[in-house]
């Protein structure tokens, strides 16, 4: 039991909000077995295992859930999803939680910046230019991260040397306009379906 003497209090409002996300209703099926906790490639550095995160959602602990690194450390390796005995598509739930976190201003993790940078590339070009993602990422993260980038310059140089880092981005796809229309429509549909 936690040191805190005052019992934590159940509040289903947050849970309901999460259960209404695209894959959120699957969380309800969680039977608290903990398989995901072990399966996770990054379990050592996760604040809460997915199981525990789902439990905290049930409890209504919005801040704890949203400030957790759990979803951001998820590498989408599919191990938990493939193993979950209740068939909860955990990585898809993590996608929803990331999206929800970004939308609700809980995006302090560096991964959140990377995600945004990646999306900006995709949306702007129809393809991803890895160099572009990196640049955008550092712009979003600011100076501290550039220091880290310097530490990694060896990696970058080696990649350049082995023709692994094209300096110029690929051409935008021809159907970019149509792709943007599709995306816009898809997001409209999603909002419609959510309610």
């Amino acid at each position: 039991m936690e040191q805190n003497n005052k019992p934590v209090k159940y509040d289903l409002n947050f849970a309901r909000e999460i259960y209404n996300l695209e894959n959120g209703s699957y969380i309800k099926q969680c039977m608290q077995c903990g398989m995901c906790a072990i399966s996770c490639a990054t379990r050592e550095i996760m604040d809460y295992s997915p199981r525990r995160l789902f439990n905290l959602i049930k409890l209504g602990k919005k801040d704890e859930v949203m400030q957790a690194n759990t979803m951001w450390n998820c590498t989408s390796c599919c191990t938990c999803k493939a193993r979950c005995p209740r068939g909860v598509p955990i990585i898809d739930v993590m996608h929803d939680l990331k999206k929800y976190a970004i939308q609700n201003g809980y995006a302090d993790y560096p991964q959140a910046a990377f995600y945004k940078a990646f999306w900006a590339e995709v949306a702007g070009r129809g393809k991803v230019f890895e160099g572009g993602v990196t640049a955008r990422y550092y712009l979003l993260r600011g100076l501290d991260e550039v220091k880290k980038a310097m530490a990694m310059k060896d990696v970058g140089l080696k990649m350049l040397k082995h023709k692994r880092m094209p300096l110029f981005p690929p051409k935008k796809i021809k159907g970019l306009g149509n792709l943007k229309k599709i995306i816009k429509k898809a997001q409209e549909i999603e909002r419609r379906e959510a309610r």
Partner: protein
Amino acid sequence: MMKYSLYPGCSMEATAQANLKSIIAVAKALDLHLEEIPDWNCCGATVASGVVGDFTQQVMTARNLAIAEAKGLDVVVGCSSCYLSLAVTNKRFKEDEHFKAKANEALAAGGYKYDGSLRVRQFLEVVINDVGFDKIKARVKKPLAGLKVAGYVGCQTVRAIPYEFDDPEYPVQMDKLMEALGATATKFPMKARCCGSSNAIAATEIVIDQAYKIFESASEGGADVIATPCPMCQLNLDAYEQMVNQKYGTNFSLPILFFTQLMAVAFDLPADAQALSYCINSPYQALASYGVAR
């Protein structure tokens, strides 16, 4: 000749050019005809899902399938992350009528429609199931006899659709492929463990820690090289091997190759098809006895 549509994906045009080059050459050598999907777009990968949600990401992915459907050929994917996107999206089109209707409603905004008629397949699986080990063996000119290969299948390749063609936890098919090339598949418990994937930039430590465990496991098994079907796995291991050595005080120097590169070597295809110069950790020494020169 068997024909397929090819979805290369963004990595193949940048960090994983060696993969694309060797795939095309190996396909040709095995009489597989690959036609690139015209004007394909990024699948968005799981990263896009985390920003715009699964539905939007899957609709984006579906644009590629919609374009490919005109030809009606199986869609072959090399990149495991792209495969995850395409295969899962395709599955939803086939199994979930409600999703299909919604997705087509969105696709229609761009003038596309997808009926869900195609099969999405991995190049590894196509090589094994459509060509078969016997034909592959017959095509080998320089058997990789004595080469000890740690078959690093990675995570998404076998877990995107579990049990589709291999055990999602302890895959064996790529090992069998390596054996068909004359090589020896080593014991490698971490063969399906995640490399850290897209955290390479934002949370490098994750990748380094994962890579360490993978290198450790491969070395314990006595591998000379690591083979993989996945561009992320290849890059993360290849690019961070030295950082792993720095952090953990280790001395790993395992070359990391796409399985298609090893096929190209065994088939004795030209150097351009083998694309070995793209490897950051030099594979030349390990492969010296198989007619490979810098």
